[in-house]
């Protein structure tokens, strides 16, 4: 079992810009990761098994919906706190961060933002505590980057709705107790509904043989004439902008999370470079290794500053989609690059399960694709610059 001695780099003394409470939250989640995730994660990844028991523990820790008000079981914390939590969890594993992101940003956030008071009281405390696991159904087999083309339908049948269609690449789905699902009504408007496990015609087959996010569970959502009670419609969600707001929230967390994965790869590479002897001296003595480490730290430092400023803007309610897209795109890209360079520094050992590098690298291949692909985020930024959307 790997001993986790992780320490985060802080070349620009960014810590001085955090409050004492932020630092306590970060050290708390880091301690949780060292105790609960690092000792087991490589084994679960190798077995491609979801450590479901951690859902309850993450709920007890308070990382599900930390920005949701305390009255609904949330933490009532700010967005920098949320970002630091995602950084630390993904430092442990992107799959675990995915579980937390989906629960907080894609299930609790839409219920809080678009749900009725009754829905908030019914679902949010159970999702916050980890008693319930949730998932989010937007992507369909033929509609990923183009969610507006979705085929799932929600028909009014008098005292209930009828939901038909299918969703694909859904994190948490095989174990989820509820799903927040987006479908078009008769008028063609995108609407959100809460689907509960056990509803007739609702199934969640698992997607197997992933080479990425192997410790996270991913599946489909299939709706075959599922009767949805009218009380389960999210009353304040109307149109595609509602699920896109959820994605903004999740992408914000991913920007921080990817930074965590990058930090872990850098930390592992630095330690290995100082310990590994070749030509009678540590490989850290060689200029090409120092170049890799220096470039890694440069990119991590830039990403730290981007995250912190974006967090400040989120706290002020001023973070926009383009800013979030830039942060998500940049930070995942640098994390992937750092993982690859760290793999090089580790030599052959880098491909083994003794080190976290390959696990992070494979995970990040999903992270660079989900929640808006690398290229789509480029186009979001392009549209911001030119005013001309180039998506189609």
């Amino acid at each position, binding site marked *: 079992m790997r001993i986790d*001695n992780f*320490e985060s780099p802080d070349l620009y003394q960014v810590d001085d810009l955090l409050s*004492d*409470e932020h*630092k*306590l*939250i970060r050290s*708390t989640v880091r*301690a*949780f990761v060292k*105790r609960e995730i690092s000792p087991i994660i490589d084994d679960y990844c190798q077995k491609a098994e979801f450590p479901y028991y951690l859902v309850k523990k993450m709920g*007890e*820790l*308070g*990382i599900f919906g*930390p920005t949701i008000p*305390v009255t609904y079981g949330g*933490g*009532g*914390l700010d967005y920098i706190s949320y970002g630091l939590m995602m950084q630390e969890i993904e430092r442990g594993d992107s799959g675990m961060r995915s579980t937390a992101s989906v629960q907080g940003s894609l299930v609790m956030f839409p219920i809080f933002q678009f749900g009725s008071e009754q829905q908030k009281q019914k679902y949010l405390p159970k999702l916050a505590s980890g008693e319930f696991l949730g998932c989010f159904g937007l992507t369909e087999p033929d509609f990923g980057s183009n969610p507006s083309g979705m085929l799932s339908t929600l028909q009014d049948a008098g005292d209930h709705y009828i939901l038909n269609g299918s969703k694909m690449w859904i994190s948490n789905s095989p174990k989820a107790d509820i799903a927040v699902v987006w479908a078009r009504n008769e008028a063609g408007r995108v609407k959100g509904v809460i689907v509960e496990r056990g509803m007739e015609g609702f199934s969640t087959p698992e997607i197997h043989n992933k080479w990425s996010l192997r410790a996270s569970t991913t599946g489909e959502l299939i709706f075959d004439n599922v009767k949805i009670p009218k009380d389960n419609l999210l009353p304040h969600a109307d149109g595609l902008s509602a699920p896109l707001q959820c994605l903004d929230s999740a992408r914000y967390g991913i920007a921080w999370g990817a930074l965590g994965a990058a930090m872990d790869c850098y930390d592992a590479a630095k330690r290995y470079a100082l310990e590994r002897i070749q030509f009678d001296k540590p490989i850290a003595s060689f200029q090409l290794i120092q170049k890799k480490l220096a470039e890694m730290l440069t990119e991590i430092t830039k990403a730290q500053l981007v995250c912190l400023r974006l967090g400040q803007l989120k706290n002020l309610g001023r973070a926009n989609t383009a800013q979030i897209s830039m942060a998500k795109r940049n930070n995942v890209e640098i994390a992937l690059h750092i993982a690859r360079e760290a793999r090089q520094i580790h030599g052959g050992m880098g491909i083994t399960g003794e080190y976290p590098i390959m696990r992070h690298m494979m995970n990040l291949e999903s992270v660079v694709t989900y929640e808006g692909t690398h290229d789509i985020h480029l186009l979001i930024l392009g549209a911001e610059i030119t005013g001309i959307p180039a998506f189609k």
Partner: protein
Amino acid sequence: MKILVCISHVPDTTSKISFTDNNTKLNTTGVQFIIGPYDEYALARAVEIKESVGAEITVINVGEIDTEPTIRKALAIGADNAVRVNAFPKDAFFVASQIASYAKSTTFDLILMGRESIDFNSGVVHSLVGEMLNIPSVSPVMKLDLNGTKAVVYREIEGGKEVLELSLPFVAGCQEPIAEWKIPNMKGIMSARTKPLVVVEPVAVEEESIYLSFELPTAKSGCKMVDASTPEKLVELLKNEAKVI
């Protein structure tokens, strides 16, 4: 039941230690401070007692304002209120005098702390506090079970353990595995914001010691490998170079 838990504010175990002011002070630049790990076990046991039989936990720290984040963490873990004695903790006698002075003002059933702090490691504060309050002190305590007004403690001794029954109140210097080390949760961190943290001024204590200077231990030298076929070489090195035989 009222429990007083004494916590120290010490450099994280991974800190790189250096000195300033002509080697008379720790250089705190870039050093992360934490609750003394042994103190944290004492706090964890207090929280377990609170959860099982109910208790009010007060944490006390002797330190300047920069120790407050450490105190807030103790509140996040489960202490109900906190006291900071507003003074630099000069030495064990000074710290013990402050704790004893505060403890005299309020009656505590149990005073818990770590077996030693991990900065100066004097390991005598619990004994001093017990003496100053004229109550028993026991250390290092690995297990502590309460039964009404009595407690059974397991104490580590050379080559074994000692089991003692004591009447409350007493002072215990704690170490693992007295309790499961606790990670606070977000609710605890939020509630710590509003829990009372009272600052009291120190009582006057005669200066018992002055630090003249600190120095770091000699850096570890490299490991020498001796071929298994030449044990005489090993004996020669141990005798003449390491001078241990």
